């Protein structure tokens, strides 16, 4: 498999490998919206007492994916907009490590694939699956052409596979077995880092016996872990059916659901970035109050707190109170405070750049103290070709930009703006500071909308024809 482009943005605040447990909160704020889901259909009433694992709401547009109560508590619907609040939280009962009885129980429970899939949806493990091409939730009753499992997480800073797998490798391989049991003969591609690290060796040894797993070693360059890029590289065309994709936390959740029959009620997320005291990983329940986390970890007086990584994450709005069910990391950046005197003329041993225009390119690459500064004025494209060099999707961002600048949406579609994986690298490297990623997102939405409208118009026409016939 060949990779194109890619680049690792280095900056301060890389989370270490330790996983801190946060103290149990008094209240949980469960957002009703996350990146893919909108839990619009409520299943609980104001003031209702719920147990850990009860369904609070479901998303009717996404195969009724449930929002589970992470802890026992009392439901409050009116306290915060777009959130379900759980108060009088009771701590999760300490569950012992797996004992033999439970494993036996799991083995005896000879569920068919369909029953297993239902269990995965009900226990909140299905939400960890992605359609590799569209990043949407795959249909739990559907059949994929292949499954991509990835332990690699390259966007700074999201929860890393090696941290999640620490001492849980057995659970992971068991999760892989469960995943395989959902399939008939479809291949599982397993992406691991290609470095000769202990971790990579360990994973390799563990899955040596699994003939149905095809190893895929990928270089640690952002964004080679992107599912759409992996699917394209493996020549799994979307025309041949969906490709399921799942990360480490998903496999662990599958294991927990199918082996222990337990819902997935805690998440490990990364907290990192320039504005964080001691960048680390934390284990929290979904809905954990954002303020409790920022109070503990953020020292910047005026930070930008981002839900997700530095290149693709969204800023937590003022109304955001708790960690969402899909959150994989929190990145904190200081907002730009001081304007640098003669900034462009500095030798630049303290800044890392994709280009070689700074002194740091002569030495080793450094981890910079990045802020939200634009670091330059908006200018017309000078055709430096950096965006094309860095693009992992093999398209020509500058060309598409020039088409979009002239409103040539048709040409942009011809230039395959739809292959863009929105990794954000083109916007990052652009010396003219053009916001290519945002432009492409907009263009892709427009093209999708056009296609949808064309489909609907065609369907209407056919309906008219049928009635007239």
């Amino acid at each position, binding site marked *: 498999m060949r990779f194109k482009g890619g680049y690792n943005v280095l900056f301060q605040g890389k989370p270490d490998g330790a996983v801190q447990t946060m103290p149990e909160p008094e209240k949980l704020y469960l957002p009703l919206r996350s990146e893919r889901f909108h839990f619009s259909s409520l299943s609980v009433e104001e003031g209702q007492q719920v147990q850990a694992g009860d369904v609070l709401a479901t998303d009717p547009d996404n195969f009724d994916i449930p929002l589970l109560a992470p802890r026992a508590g009392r439901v409050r619907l009116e306290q915060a907009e777009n959130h379900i609040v759980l108060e009088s939280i009771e701590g999760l009962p300490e569950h012992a490590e797996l004992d033999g009885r439970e494993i036996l129980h799991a083995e005896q429970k000879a569920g068919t694939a369909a029953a297993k899939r239902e269990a995965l949806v009900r226990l909140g493990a299905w939400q960890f699956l992605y359609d590799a091409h569209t990043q949407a939730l795959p249909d739990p009753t559907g059949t994929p052409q292949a499954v991509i499992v990835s332990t690699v997480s390259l966007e700074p800073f999201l929860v890393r596979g090696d941290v999640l797998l620490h001492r849980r490798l057995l659970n992971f391989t068991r999760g892989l077995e469960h995943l395989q049991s959902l399939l008939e003969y479809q291949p599982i591609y397993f992406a691991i880092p290609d470095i000769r690290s202990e971790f990579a060796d360990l994973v390799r040894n563990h899955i040596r016996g699994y003939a149905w797993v095809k190893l895929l070693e990928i270089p640690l360059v952002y964004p080679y872990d992107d599912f759409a890029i992996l699917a394209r590289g493996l020549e799994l065309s979307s025309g041949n059916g969906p490709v399921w994709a799942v990360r480490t936390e998903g496999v662990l959740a599958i294991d927990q659901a199918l082996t222990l029959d337990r819902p997935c009620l805690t998440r490990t997320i990364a907290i990192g970035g320039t504005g964080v005291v001691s960048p680390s990983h934390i284990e929290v329940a979904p809905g954990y109050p954002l303020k409790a986390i920022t109070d503990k970890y953020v020292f910047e007086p005026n930070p930008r707190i981002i839900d997700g990584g530095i290149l693709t994450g969204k800023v937590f709005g003022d109304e955001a109170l708790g960690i969402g069910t899909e959150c994989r990391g929190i990145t904190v950046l200081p907002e730009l405070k001081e304007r640098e005197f003669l900034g462009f003329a500095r030798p630049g041993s303290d800044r890392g750049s994709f*280009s070689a225009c700074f002194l740091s390119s002569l030495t080793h690459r450094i981890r910079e103290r990045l802020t939200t500064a634009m670091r330059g004025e908006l200018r017309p494209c000078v055709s430096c070709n950096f965006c094309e060099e860095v693009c992992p999707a093999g398209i020509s961002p500058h060309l598409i930009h020039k088409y979009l600048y002239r409103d040539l949406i048709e040409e942009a579609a011809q230039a395959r703006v739809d292959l863009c994986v929105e990794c954000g690298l083109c916007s990052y490297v652009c010396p003219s500071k053009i916001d290519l990623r945002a432009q492409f997102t907009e263009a892709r939405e427009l093209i999708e909308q056009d296609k949808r409208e064309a489909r609907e118009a065609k369907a209407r026409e056919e309906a008219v024809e049928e009635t007239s016939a």
Partner: protein
Amino acid sequence: MKVLLRLLDKVRPTFEDGGRLHLLHPAFEAIEHFLFSPSQTTITAPHVRDPLDLKRFMSMAIISLVPCILAGLYFYGLRFIAIIVVSYAAGLTVELIFAIARKEGINEGFFVTGILFPLIMPPAVPLWMVALGVAFGVFIGKEIFGGTGRNLFNPALVGRCFLALAYPAQMSGSWLAPATELGGRVLKYVDGSNLDAVTTATPLALAKQGEFVSTAHMFVGNVAGSIGETSAIAILAGGIFLLMTRVGSWRTVVSTLASFAVLAAILRHAQPDRFGPVLWHLCAGGLLFGAFFMTTDPVTGPVTNTGKWLYGAVIGATTVLIRNFTGYVEGVTFAILLGNIVAPILDEAVFAVRLRRLRSEG
């Protein structure tokens, strides 16, 4: 520095909409952003940006020209400074007028044009011609296309081409014999009135009469020629720096020089008594300067890497042909302008192939 920033903040309202000097806002903005990095922040993902901006990008081009500037100063004296000042003053006026009319900022690209242009002038050229040439180049070569980033032709070369066609006598008769004394002309002002310094013979012109200047002299630079192009060693020093910063593409340079060398070698092999040796031709005239500093202009060259290889080949081959088979002694200017014309077509062809391949994917 805080004082300076406070001062800028204080006078800012004068230059903003409704202020007394709001017409001069581009000038104010240029000065402000020269002194202090801009205060804009990112709005959406990606939340951070690379430190490289267009100022830095263009500064690299200017820094890479420093060896040529110093060599020019050494060989041709203080008059070179006067040419630079005139070039910047005239060009900046045009740039500012268009920035005001277009309500856009002053583009950094001009600062490269403003120094490139003096370097490709004959050392004894009248100063009014410098002003006229750079103004024409910036106006016709760049601004009417929409400014930096949208221009089809290299503005400095458009200006030079215009002067060469409009004032052929002055342009081909304003050469100076380079300094021969040890200290150079660093402290001397030599212009066309100093008749014994004026010469009409650049190495390429002499070669037409069958007289070859030594390659070693051309390598160091003490031959007659345009201010910046005579010293091969200065061009190489700056040019390699430019390629190392990745502001200029090595592909274009290698392709230009390689195609030139190959074609020149073929000619030399066919008729050794008629055509000059390859290394001699490589060092002569504006080839090296053009290859390193003109063809590498990202805006007027092709974007794609394949396009760059082809672009260089067109320029290198055309230069050989013009030098050896036409009435002109030098052909780099025309060759690069021709390259500028074909660059979009080359890109178009590369994109067509690439898009056909992409069509089946995903």
